C-alpha cells in the first residue's frame, strides 16, 4: 500500500468516525447498554427502590421463573385398600400442598403451586410450577405465536393474490386493506372492546343477524376460553395489511413470462399458483413468518388495554409479565430475567431464519 493511500485512509477515519458517532453513540447508550444491563440485572436481586444493597444471586431468578415439576398422586385408600370417594363418586387424592410445603421428601417441589392436572389411570398427574402465572404467560404466548403466524401469513397471502389482479380501481382496495396498519394498536384495542362486548357487542349483533337470532351471545373477552383467541383475531385484522404488502412486493418480482408460458401449457389457476407463484415466494414466506413471529412474541398493548392478563390469567403474555414485574411491581431483577428469556427466544428464531435461508443458497 502506498504512503499516499494510507494517509487518505487516516483522513477518512477521522471524518468517518465524526459522522457516524452521533447515531452509533445513541444506539450504544440507549440500546446496547440497557441490553447488557438486562443480562447483568437478571443475575441480581435489584429492585427500583430498596433499602438493601444489590446482591448477585446467580441463576435464582431463572430458577424461580422456570421451575416446573410433576407429581403423581395416588388416590386415598381406606384400611381395606378400597379407594376413598367423595360425595360425587370421584376418588379423593392427597392435597398437593402436603408435598410442596415443608415436606423433606419432596424438597425439589418446595414452594410450587398447581398449574394443571389430569387423570392418569386411577392416579392423578399434577403439573407444578414455581411461578404459575409466568408459566401460563409463556404457554399463552407460545399458543398465540403458533396460531397467529400461519393464520396471519396465510390470510395476508390470500389478500395479496386478491389485490394482484388486474382490475380497474384495485389500488383503492389495497389502500383500504392496509388502513388498519396505520392506526395505533391502542385505539384498535379500545374499538374492539365494543365489538367483543358480551351484552350488546357488535360481533354478537352480527352473528345473531346472520343466524336469524339463533346465536347465544358470548362475552368474548370475559370468557377464559375465548379471550386469547379474540385478541388474536383482532391482531390479525390490524396487522394483516402490512404482510399483504410484503407478499405483494414478492409477487411482483415473479416474471410475467412464466405465467404466459404456463398459459400456453394450459395450466389451471391452482397449478399456476403451485408451480409458478409459490416457488417464487419462498424467501418472502420465510421473512414474513419471522416478522410475524417476532411481533407476536412482543404481545403487550392489546393485553394491557383489553384484559390486563385476565380472565383467570388466560391472556397473560411474556412481555405483559415483564412489565408487570419490572415496572408495576418494581422488581427490576425479575423483569430483566423475563426480558433475557424473551431475547433468547427471539435470537433462536433469527438464527433459525438464517439457517433456513442459507440452506437453499
Amino acid at each position: 500500500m502506498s504512503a499516499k493511500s494510507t494517509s487518505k485512509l487516516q483522513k477518512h477515519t477521522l471524518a468517518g468516525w465524526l459522522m457516524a458517532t452521533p447515531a452509533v453513540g445513541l444506539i450504544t447508550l440507549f440500546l446496547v447498554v440497557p441490553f447488557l444491563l438486562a443480562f447483568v440485572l437478571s443475575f441480581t436481586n435489584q429492585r427500583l427502590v430498596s433499602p438493601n444493597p444489590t446482591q448477585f444471586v446467580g441463576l435464582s431468578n431463572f430458577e424461580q421463573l422456570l421451575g416446573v415439576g410433576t407429581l403423581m398422586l395416588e388416590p386415598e385408600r381406606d384400611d381395606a385398600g378400597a379407594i376413598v370417594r367423595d360425595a360425587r363418586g370421584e376418588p379423593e387424592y392427597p392435597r398437593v400442598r402436603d408435598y410442596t410445603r415443608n415436606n423433606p421428601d419432596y424438597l425439589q417441589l418446595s414452594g410450587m403451586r398447581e398449574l394443571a392436572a389430569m387423570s392418569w389411570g386411577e392416579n392423578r398427574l399434577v403439573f407444578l410450577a414455581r411461578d404459575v402465572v409466568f408459566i401460563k404467560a409463556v404457554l399463552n404466548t407460545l399458543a398465540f405465536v403458533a396460531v397467529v403466524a400461519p393464520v396471519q401469513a396465510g390470510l395476508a397471502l390470500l389478500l395479496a393474490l386478491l389485490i394482484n389482479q388486474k382490475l380497474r380501481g384495485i389500488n383503492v382496495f389495497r389502500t383500504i386493506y392496509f388502513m388498519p396498519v396505520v392506526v395505533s394498536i391502542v385505539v384498535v384495542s379500545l374499538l374492539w372492546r365494543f365489538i367483543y362486548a358480551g351484552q350488546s357487542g357488535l360481533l354478537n349483533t352480527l352473528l345473531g343477524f346472520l343466524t336469524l337470532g339463533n346465536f347465544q351471545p358470548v362475552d368474548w373477552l370475559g370468557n377464559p376460553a375465548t379471550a386469547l383467541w379474540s385478541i388474536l383475531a383482532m391482531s390479525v385484522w390490524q396487522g394483516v395489511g402490512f404482510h399483504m404488502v410484503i407478499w405483494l412486493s414478492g409477487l411482483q418480482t415473479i416474471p410475467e413470462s412464466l405465467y404466459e408460458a404456463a398459459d400456453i401449457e394450459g395450466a389451471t389457476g391452482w397449478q399456476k399458483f403451485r408451480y409458478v407463484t409459490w416457488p417464487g415466494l419462498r424467501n418472502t414466506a420465510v421473512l414474513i413468518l419471522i416478522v410475524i413471529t417476532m411481533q407476536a412474541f412482543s404481545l403487550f398493548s392489546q393485553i394491557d388495554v383489553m384484559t390486563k392478563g385476565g380472565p383467570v390469567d388466560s391472556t397473560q403474555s411474556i412481555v405483559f409479565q415483564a412489565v408487570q414485574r419490572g415496572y408495576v411491581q418494581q422488581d427490576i431483577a425479575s423483569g430483566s430475567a423475563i426480558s433475557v428469556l424473551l431475547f433468547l427466544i427471539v435470537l433462536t428464531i433469527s438464527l433459525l431464519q438464517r439457517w433456513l435461508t442459507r440452506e437453499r443458497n
Partner: protein
Amino acid sequence: MALTTRRSRLSTALRYALLVAVALVFVFPIVFMVMSSLKPDLQLLRDTTSFNAFLPVGDISLDNYFAAFRRAPVALFVFNSILVTSITVAVSLFLCSMAAFSFVFLNWKGRDVVLAAVIATLIVPFETIAIPLLLVVNNLPWIGPNGLTTGWLNTYHVQIVPWIADALTIFLFVQYFKDLPKDLVEAARIDGATWFQVYARVIVPISGPVIATAAILKFLAMYNQYLWPLMVTQSEAFRPVMVGLQYFFQLNVAWGEVMAYLSLITLPVLVFYLALQRAFIASIASTGIKG
C-alpha cells in the same frame, strides 16, 4: 362469443363483490368509531345492537368533541405528541442518514464491524430492553433551565433522545446510498468540498425517496408509541395522545367522549395516510428486504 363475455362479466362482478366484502371487514370498526363519536352515550350503546351503529342517524352532534376537550387537556396531549414526534423524526433523519453516508462513502478503520454491530441490533425487540432502559434514563444527567439535574423521567427529552437513532433507519439509508453512483462523491471531493458538504449538498438533495420512507416509518412508530411514554410520563404535562387516553377511563366513562377522542387522534393520521398512500405502501414494501 357472447357467452364468454357474459361469463367474464359475471366473474368480474363476483371479484368486485369479494373485494368489497373484504373491504367492509377492514373499515367497519373505523366507521363505527366516527359515527359513535357523534352520538349521545345512551344512543351509542343502543345502536350497537343494530346496523345503526354504522350510520349517522338519531341525535347527531359534535357535543362529544367539546366534552372531550373539557374533560382532558386534549390540546396539550396533541401538542406533546406533535412536538415529540416531529423533533424525533427530524433529528433521526439527519443523524441516521449522516451515519449511513459515513458507512457507505467513507473508508475508515472499524467501519464494517461497527455497521455489522448496528445491523445486529435489529433483532433486539424494544420490549426486552424497556426496563433496563428505564433504569438508564433514570440515572442520566441533563442540563436545562434548572441547571444540572439527574433523571430524565417526566420530560420531553426522555421521549425523544432514546428514539433518535435506530438500526432500521440507518439500514434504509445504507441500502439507498449503495445504489448511488460513486462518481458524484469523488467529483465533489476533487472540487474541494468537505465530507460534510458532500453529504449535505450532493447526497441529501437526491435522497428524496428514502427520506420519505424513513420519515413515514419513524412517524408511525413514534406517534403510535404506547409502552415507553406510559412508563416515563407520570405527570400529565408531558403525556402524548396515546397515554392521555387513560384520562377518559377515570371515574365515569363516557363512551361518546372516548370515541370523539379516538377519532380526533386517529383521523389526522388516516388523512395523512390516504393523501400519501403510495409512499406509505412503498415504504412498507421496502422494509421487505429487512431480516
